[in-house]
């Protein structure tokens, strides 16, 4: 066992930090508050372009697609540093983490040639059209339909909670081509296709994040389908397992915890209650960090994804919650015109147990797969 970083990993982290120091503007923390806002979207495009030029956008991609064939540690260290900085890549992290790799694996040559190079250059924003008003946790019950029409399909239905939809160029869309779980297909859909309407949903989590997307007789060619008809479930399961642990949320949580403690210390408010809660939150962040590292390590060893990934995700939810609760109780000014990044963190932390799958779903998986408890009756 070795809990230390090797030379290469240290210098890669240093390289990323140097890049961040040089490329984040002075007002970055104010910009960070709305991950899908116009201001951040514009900035993120420029930032991702610069990252790409520095070879830091897709280092873990194969060299044929502009990467450096780096190992999973590299992409995780990169993700940690980006998230700790407030995620200046905006929604492009999805391209880098799983949309690009999914296209490499399942896309046609034409789809790859069209979509992957702009991702590798940091020029394009995607959104993920999975959830619907009647299909959240029970995603397989989704109703948006793609009916055969001429040489292609005609899509009708509605998505909801779609992050970045207002600014995205392309949607990674799930739609039904037949009944049942095996009747769902994936479409790569340009967002300027006629018949698509996007409406932003005002929320407590920051400007421009979540949207409703309506599809009215949206016509797409057959070549917009990724994989075979009905293959969506298998592809999505595989591509989401590329992420395994998801966003390294502990990195920003931990940084914000230290910042909040600093605020309290300077103000002489770091009292016994604050010490107790901040220490507890710190322990939860560090436990989560080790859970995540453990899983990245397994991935490096070529082990298949196991149930520990769900445990890591739930540990993340717990850590985010403890940090956010600590800040609200002890640094309440953060939500009232105080520190911009503490506010942005709060807005991200409160969705940790909902976005990308409810925490309770992870608990179900842990109970069944890790503990091997008897299943719930259906």
């Amino acid at each position, binding site marked *: *066992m*070795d*809990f230390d*970083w*090797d030379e290469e*990993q*240290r210098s890669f*982290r240093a390289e990323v*930090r140097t890049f961040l120091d040089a490329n984040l503007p002075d007002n970055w923390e104010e910009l960070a508050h709305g991950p899908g806002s116009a201001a951040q979207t514009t900035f993120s495009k420029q930032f991702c372009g610069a990252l790409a030029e520095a070879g830091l956008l897709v280092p873990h991609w194969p060299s044929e697609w502009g990467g450096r064939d780096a190992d999973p*540690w590299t992409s995780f260290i990169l993700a*940690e540093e980006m998230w*700790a900085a407030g995620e200046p890549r905006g929604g492009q992290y999805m391209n880098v983490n799983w949309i690009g790799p999914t296209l490499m694996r399942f896309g046609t040559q034409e789809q790859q040639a069209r979509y992957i190079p702009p991702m590798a250059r940091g020029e394009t924003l995607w959104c993920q059209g999975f959830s619907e008003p009647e299909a959240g946790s029970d995603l397989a019950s989704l109703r948006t339909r793609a009916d055969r029409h001429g040489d292609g399909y005609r899509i009708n239905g509605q998505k909801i909670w779609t992050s970045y939809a207002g600014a995205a160029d392309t949607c990674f869309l799930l739609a039904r081509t037949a009944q049942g779980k095996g009747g769902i297909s994936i479409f790569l859909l340009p967002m300027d296709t006629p018949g698509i309407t996007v409406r932003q949903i005002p929320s407590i989590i920051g400007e421009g994040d979540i949207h409703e997307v309506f599809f009215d007789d949206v016509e797409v060619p057959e070549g917009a389908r990724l994989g075979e008809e009905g293959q969506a479930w298998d592809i999505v399961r595989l591509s989401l397992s590329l992420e395994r642990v998801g966003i390294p949320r502990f*990195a920003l949580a*931990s*940084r914000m*915890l*230290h910042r909040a*403690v600093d605020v309290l*210390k300077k103000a002489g408010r*770091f009292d*016994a209650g604050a*010490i*107790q809660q*901040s*220490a*507890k939150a*710190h*322990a*939860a962040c*560090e*436990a*989560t*960090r*080790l*859970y995540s*590292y*453990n899983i*990245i*390590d*397994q991935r490096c*060893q070529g082990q298949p994804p196991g149930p520990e990934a769900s*445990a890591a995700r*739930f*540990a993340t939810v*717990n850590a985010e919650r403890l940090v956010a609760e600590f800040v609200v109780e002890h640094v309440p000014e953060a939500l009232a015109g105080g520190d911009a990044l503490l506010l942005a963190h709060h807005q991200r932390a409160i969705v940790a147990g909902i976005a990308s799958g409810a925490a*309770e779903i*992870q*608990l*179900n998986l*842990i*109970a*069944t797969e*890790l*503990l*091997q*408890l*008897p*299943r*719930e*009756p259906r």
Partner: protein
Amino acid sequence: MDFTLTSDQAALTGAIDRMATQFESIPTEFDGFVLEGRELEQELENGQYFDIAAIPEMGPIAAALAVERLARLPCAVEVALSMLVRPQLDIELPRPFALVEAGRPGRFVASARTLLIVADDSIGIAHPSPDDVEAVESLYAYPMGKVTGALSIRALPAEDAARVRTWLRVACAAEIAGLLQAAIDVTVEHLSVRKQFGRPLGSFQALRHRMAECAVLAGGVRRLALKAAWTGDAGDAALAALHAQESATRVIYDVHQMFGAMGMTLEMSLHLWTYRMKALLSELGGRGAQAAAVAQYCFDNKPARID
């Protein structure tokens, strides 16, 4: 960053595991508060396992793994302090070890040959004669004892005391990690077998979720304990001990709840794990003191970013 054991460490943990398997079962006639593991202790002595931390190829991480594994057994043996704290002292001191805090009864105090006497910031060492200590009846599933005589105490220099305190925290966290795992394992088994309302209790989501949360906490404690054993850092040790005591508090309640009345019986023996954890909840000043140590070592002049 690498979570695989070296071949030496893997061989050692394999050996400990095989030894542990022989002590897995609770004698059928047993219905006491404490199950003492004298035979196991003898085997550990014979194999010189108490000294593994000092072997360069093994190190404290191997000792922490051993402590965690052995804590999962139903019997109580003084392993953690001997394996993790004793090697941190420059001089060779006789085991078993025991901790005495504020004159209160402590685990293994009646049989210890070396006592660590903790008072505020200082730690002293004493070697009691049999007349200086006596056994105490208790609910805790460790043999408990207290000091009755006047001991001659040699104070440790401040630096040594700080190091010992760090390793006491590592020992506490590693032991709790094993106890948590064992308590969860027996509860999962119970929930899979016990039926009410025509189905196994473990198929009720209310219980499944609570057990899943317990499992996540236990996994976190284990990882923090191992990391602290690897770094020997005071902050890492404080984090591990805090998360351990915090998690144990929650898990003890949940597992007892899920056993129903059966969990209250000496026959069921759930207490062998939960009441060992309860004994550890107050050690080293409890959660309040661990939190203060986290504040001291982790929030003072430390960069918020990882290095």
